[in-house]
């Protein structure tokens, strides 16, 4: 009988030409994993909570428990939020072209308003 050898992502295993005793790779219907939560860390009191990554957890209490050590064990934190990943609403990749904007709208950009001279003039007048 022509038995197959194991083909692994680890080349050392493949090279060892170990005979496979299973004919097919078992198929799993559902990944046995927890859901994910997104973590937002605040590094300065009063500052924004900034997205720093995600954690796996069975529920939100555990997510907060884990987030503190994943993202808060080094450096300074003044606050932390966790949010279920599926609570985050976003655009589909097909719609990202909505962010493209035509360049001929200088009037919408800060740089288009040259007010420095006027501000300096005003400060001078206030003295």
């Amino acid at each position, binding site marked *: 009988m022509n038995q197959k050898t194991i083909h692994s992502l680890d080349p050392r295993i493949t090279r060892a030409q170990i005979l496979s005793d299973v004919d097919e790779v078992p198929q799993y219907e559902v990944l046995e994993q*927890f859901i994910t939560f997104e973590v937002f860390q605040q590094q300065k009191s009063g500052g924004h909570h900034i997205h720093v990554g995600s*954690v*796996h*957890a*069975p*529920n939100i*209490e*555990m997510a907060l*428990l*884990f987030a*503190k*050590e*994943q993202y808060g*064990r080094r450096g300074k934190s003044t606050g932390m939020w966790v949010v279920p990943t599926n609570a985050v609403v976003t655009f589909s990749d097909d719609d990202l072209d909505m962010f493209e904007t035509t360049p001929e709208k200088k009037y919408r950009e800060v740089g288009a308003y040259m007010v420095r001279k006027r501000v300096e003039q005003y400060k001078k007048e206030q003295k």
Partner: protein
Amino acid sequence: MNTEAVKNLLYRMADDALIIAHRNSEWTGLGPILEEDIAFSSIAQDKLGHALALYTILNELGEAEPDIIAFTRNEKDFCCSQLVEYPIGEYDFSLVRHFMFDTAEKLRYELLQQSTFEPIAKLAKKVSGEIKYHTFHADTWIFQLGSKGNEESKARMQSAINEVYPIAFSIFEPSSFEDSLIADATFVGEVELQKRWVERITSIVEGAGLKLPTIDVTSHYGGRNKFHTEHLQPLLDEMTVVFLLDPSAEW
């Protein structure tokens, strides 16, 4: 201040911290999930920090350098409680030990914030946030696997509680310095600490739908008087193997 009494208190606390740090670090890379592996390892590192801080105070009181104290003594020189010596077992055992040990640590350090021995009062304030997270971590797990868990998790938690609870009283084994520490208000003493600990543990365990067994509190005494289980010396042999290759090496 009775220096010998203070040193004895510091040794008991420092040895507990060092040995539980080593034990809990044995889970690194083997934790049930990545996030918990990191959290548990990080808590173990905090404990190592507490041990270092306490050995440093001892050094200031005339004892050897922290590394020398930590890595060159044998079993018979340690006064850790027997609770911290036991092998990690399965995760339920380690979690319940962590819960019972850290609840005692939290209460002990809270009481030490009022100590008349200033270095320990200062340290107690400094580490209070860290220890609060350690108990938050432990309490959360007890609730998750207790009242919020399933039949299997509840049964495993109950069996681990039955196993760990009698051993945990080894933390409060009184030393011969109790009266002296209480008299000069260095520490309120193990009896008072144990009373508060039982109240706190009872409230969390029962709140999580679990029960505390009836036990003999003195059954695992010995550690504070340097009588240990057979598990301590092999731990020390493993912990010191690198240091002893060259004790004078600069790290």
